[in-house]
């Protein structure tokens, strides 16, 4: 179970594949106010328009005050109806602030949502069951979140390969915005396959779980770095890139999940407000084992929020420049990547 302190964006969060395998607590107490938009609407490139993947990804949600009615011009159903439709459980009337403090103090916890008609819930029984389930830390989520087959999106004359470790639709939308076509590939695609599409760059996406479990992707990333391929890592993708270059990652006690995180860009000394959703983090000390240098740091706890390769062709951010949910202040990361790709086009290695 994790918590997110964003005040809007439950639709985006719940469909973010990075939340796969997690029960999400909203610290904002009023959830469901503006309902749920038509989730099957797609844009001209076939990307779901209003959501971040094709389904609800969280395993369950915890709410203080669920709005059973909703109103918004884009809404077609209530949050409750949506959960019912996708058979995802939720619970409300919970002191979510108390729960958040517990998570903050005890760290991210394995948990179960229990439904019962009687008061006699057998807690021991549930605890036993809980112990028997695979721990989040050891689980490979790729079979749930990564695409099974290669997908082509948009005009791929100039293209970017996205290694799908659970990518959010907004990353795809941003690539289309900077005028590249997209080749979306399974997380364990071989490097030869990737290069066969002659991509201008590769994005390793966000996604759930411990980055070390994505060994195949780490290996691929390592080769891409050697190839001097422009690579953009986002969130899990950033951690994978770091691991690919001999840096280390570790698990944060309760992660960063919010839309208000200040990150300092070392290059221009400016602080940007970012959207975040990660439980693991790049070890700052370990960067010296790698060719990466620090690019962004979290202004509060000084953790690594972005790295730049010394050859300046690979960049990675721990936060979500694509926002959704959250602020768009770091959308420029995509422009930075575009620039790298274009420069690379002019002077191939």
């Amino acid at each position, binding site marked *: 179970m994790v*918590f997110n*302190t*964003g*005040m*809007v*964006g439950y*639709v*985006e969060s719940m469909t973010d594949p990075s939340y796969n395998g997690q029960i999400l607590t909203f*610290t*904002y*107490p*009023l959830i469901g*106010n*503006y309902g749920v*938009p038509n989730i099957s609407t797609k844009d001209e490139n076939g990307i779901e328009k209003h959501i971040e993947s094709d389904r609800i990804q969280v395993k369950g949600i915890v709410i*203080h*005050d669920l*709005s059973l*009615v*909703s*109103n*918004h*011009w*884009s809404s077609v159903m209530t949050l409750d109806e949506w959960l019912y439709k996708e058979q995802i459980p939720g619970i409300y009337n919970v*002191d*979510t*602030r*108390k729960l*958040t*403090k517990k998570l*903050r103090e005890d760290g991210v916890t394995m948990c179960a949502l229990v439904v019962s008609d009687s008061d006699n819930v057998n807690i021991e029984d549930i605890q036993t069951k809980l112990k028997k389930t695979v721990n989040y830390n050891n689980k490979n989520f790729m079979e749930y979140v990564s695409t099974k087959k290669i997908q082509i999106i948009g005009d791929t004359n100039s293209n970017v390969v996205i290694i799908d470790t659970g990518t959010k639709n907004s990353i795809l939308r941003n690539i289309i915005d900077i005028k590249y076509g997209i080749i979306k590939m399974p997380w364990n695609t071989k490097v030869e396959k990737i290069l066969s599409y002659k991509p201008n760059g590769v994005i390793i996406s966000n996604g759930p779980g411990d980055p070390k479990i994505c060994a195949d992707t780490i290996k691929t990333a390592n080769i891409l770095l050697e190839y001097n391929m422009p690579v953009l890592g986002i969130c899990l993708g950033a951690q994978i890139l770091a691991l690919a270059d001999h840096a280390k990652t570790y698990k944060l006690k309760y992660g960063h999940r*919010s*839309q*208000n*995180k*200040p990150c*300092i860009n070392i290059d221009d*000394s*400016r*602080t940007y*407000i970012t959207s975040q959703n990660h439980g693991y983090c790049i070890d700052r000390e370990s960067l010296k084992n790698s060719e990466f240098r620090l690019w962004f740091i979290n*202004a*509060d706890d000084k953790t690594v929020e972005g790295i730049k390769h010394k050859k300046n062709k690979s960049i990675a951010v721990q936060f979500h420049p694509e*926002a*959704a*949910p*959250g*602020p*768009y*202040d770091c959308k420029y990361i995509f422009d930075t990547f575009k620039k790298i790709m274009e420069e690379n086009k002019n002077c191939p290695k």
Partner: protein
Amino acid sequence: MLVNPNIATIQTDAKFADKIYLLPVTTEYVNRVIEKERPDGVMLGFGGQTALNCGVNLSDCGSIKKYGINVLGTKIDSIKISEDRQLFKEAMSNCNVPTLESEAVESFQDAKIVAKRLNYPVIIRVAYTLGGRGGGVARNEIELYEIVNRGINASMVGQVLIEKYIGNWKQIEYEIMRDSNKNSITICNMENILAMKVHTGDNIVVAPSQTINNSEYHLLRSASIRAADHVNIIGECNVQFALDTHSSKYVAIEMNPRLSRSSALASKATGYPIAYMSAKINLGYTLDELQNNITKKTTACFEPSLDYIVCKHPRWDFNKFEFASKKLGTTMKSTGEVMSIGRTFEEALQKAIRMLDINKDGLVLNKYDKDIDDEEDIENHLMNPDNSILYYIAAAIKKKIPIEKISRLSSVDPWFINKIKNIVELENKLIRNKLDMKLLREVKKRGFSDRQIARATNISEYNVRQTRKQIGVVPVVKRIDTLSAEWPTQTNYLYLTYGGDKNDFQITNGGSIIVLGAGPYRIGSSVEFDWGTVNMVFGLQENGEKNVSVINCNPETVSTDYDICERLYFEELTIERILDIIEFEKSKGVVTSVGGQIANNLTLQLHKNDVNIIGTEPINIDKAEDRSKFSSILDRLNILQPAWKKFSDLEESLEFAKFVKYPIIARPSYVLSGASMKVVWSENDLKKYFKQAVISLEYPVVISKYITNALEVDVDGVSDTKNVIIGSIIEHVDNAGIHSGDAMMCIPPRRLDKITIDKIIQHTKNIAIEFKVKGPFNIQFIVINKLVYVIELNIRASRSMPFVSKLKNINLVKLAAQAILNKPLQEITCKNNNKNFEFGVKIPQFSFMQLDGADITLGVEMQSTGEVACLGHSFYDAISKGLIAAGYKLPKNGCVIVIMDHNNIKDERILKSIMILHDIGFTILTTRIIRKILLQKLNDDRNDNIKDLDIQQHNVIELLYQKKIDMVINISNTMQTTRNDKIINEEYQIRRKALELGIPVLTTIQIMEVFIKTLQWRNKKKKTSIQPLNFEI
């Protein structure tokens, strides 16, 4: 150095600035301060629109450049962009932020053409103004004429803006901080429940927004940052958007490059100290260098995350103004506001309603719920909202009007209406079902008070509380921590909610003293009580009592700054909630003497609930408030008082009134600011009063002789039951009969002789000791023919205490803190050796302009919404500045209209004043009869400077519009026994029009005398003095 004539605010306490100038914030006076002090820099963003306008003027007249002053924060050019509508639009278009199609015009002719093109209705906005002053919605050409003319006059630059009316769009605001390194953050956004239809100052507002989704939230957020970036805001600004309800279409409405009411609200709503951080940014710090004061670990360069909902509700005082329209629109009319915090919308809303102190226990189940049943009436009210819009929405739901229709008529988003429906449905459940634990929990979670529950279930409030506590249905205390518990915090910024089951912390240091604040600013209880609350806290701390908590719910106050006291409860000032807090705090007692009306009225109730009142014994307070007890004590002390008697029966009171002769004052026992107190002029009036007034048996009506034409005096003091310290004797400039809150006041007295002063001092000491006053008190006297009458004793801090304390350099409230801690008061030799000034005057500030239709004649009902004070070497030196600070124009010469009952002119004082005007060169326009009298007096029947006025009303209004009139003297008959119930409409129209056009109108003899003598004083080319209030540098 601070320039601000507001005497009652904590800001003008010596503690907060090195030098304080109580001067009008006008170009002239600020320029003089600049000349004298030669400052290095100036901050313009902290004094509202007044300071901003003044800064622009200072720049335009070259002073900023001439004296090499650094404008700290947002620069003048940027201010101009955000203030000039046309420049603003161009700037927004350049940074890709859409605005509404509109045009700036400077005449009605141009306005007409634009309005036709845009199609009616159109909205008229006034450039350079505050509180939307003078703007409005025009549905046709006639309305357009009216509003455009008024607006052009109110605007500093004679400019108004005509644009399409989009009243049904959502009104969303963002508060932005930006530093010189271009770091930008939004502190919070806010959604106005009454949409664009109603000025945000009069709107019911929630933070954060509730009905917009992620993409809209961040679309507007990005737009606000782009705007701030483009205009180059350094510090704080507010951007207001209108958002379509059927698409993501939006427009930026305006941008305020300064601290505003909204930023104060945003600060309190989030715990992010916007003004403080903004000041640092103005000094050159960048956001990332600053620390989040709440966590003490994280940076100030972040965006607060809330895990509660905040609801701001305005407080209106329409019932103080007989003719004022209660309709809400684009002009702000409220006098204050409350902010409530909850974990459901229903909880926040019902808490806010209770905080307003308007005799309501929530949205429903009130003692005096008006029966609203007529569907047409309901629909009409939904369409044209007034101060009871929420109750009409509830009525509409009860009437089964579909939600969509309610929304269409009212422009309120269906989400909010559905939440109100939840409240209505729970009311039904409460009435129909047995009260079990589940229902009890549910209604408490939705903000129902014990009193509402008691009313629905026919159980006493006391029993509801006991039952509730027995089964463990109690509120929990939660912290406001700026980041939704993501980081550990030790903040003392607290609220109570039923939306949870665990307190954030437990009290380890019981035995605190709780100080009750004053709730919303309203007429009669305003910023002076915030000053009192804060100084009481400081006083207690300085006297060794560190464990002090405050309860208050007004986001515009310093007493709700969380760093003032040990623990701040941003909470209701209701008996239920105060008891909840006392129990949680294990408090040793409550101070009720500095929080104005609310706190004062709670004293006896708290006492009955076994709460220790720290200060004067409640039994003695009761003796002062109960007229018969009070009176018999005065008799025993041989102190005179106007004839009075207590009645619950009409016949007896008629007889009494006949005996003492009309006029009389009728009032219920517990009053402050004259609420439901009325001057009765005739037998018929008295009969009517008995029909209208709500007179409970417990508190019958008290009738006393109304003494007119007498001198009124206030005394503010403090006592420890044995020693009495008198702050000052304050003389009213106006005669008795004007509410003391509306009266101009003067220190030291200038019309009292030594014997009278001694008598007043003796009476004061005798009374304070007799009533065993422990803490602050105020006594009102009337002096007539050297006889001294007592009219009132208030055992609490008074409205004039900041005035007295600051001018005499004796902090009465801090002394009161000493007294209530049982530390004896020592005789104080007058510390005021301040030779900077001899006189100080306090002048009320009125807001008639904002209240459509309100008449400006004064009476026993208090009507002023604020006050200023200025200092001087002479009375006229002080008052001359005071009048300007309160917004009067002081004409040098020109034309004055004199209209009054011609019998009035025979009054020697009036005649003399008008002669002065004539002598200093004014042209006098008056009725034929008055002219004759004047000419006779002058012995000159050909005098050209006294002219006949054709009293055809049209002509006068026309003259006013043509700016041919510089002053209006209209001594109405209000103050005389022959007062007709029907106000002479003509005169009212003239007064109202003159007011709207900014022409001074003099309505009482005293004010007229003072005003004209001031003009005379100024005419002799006397230059006003400027001097700081404090001087110990």
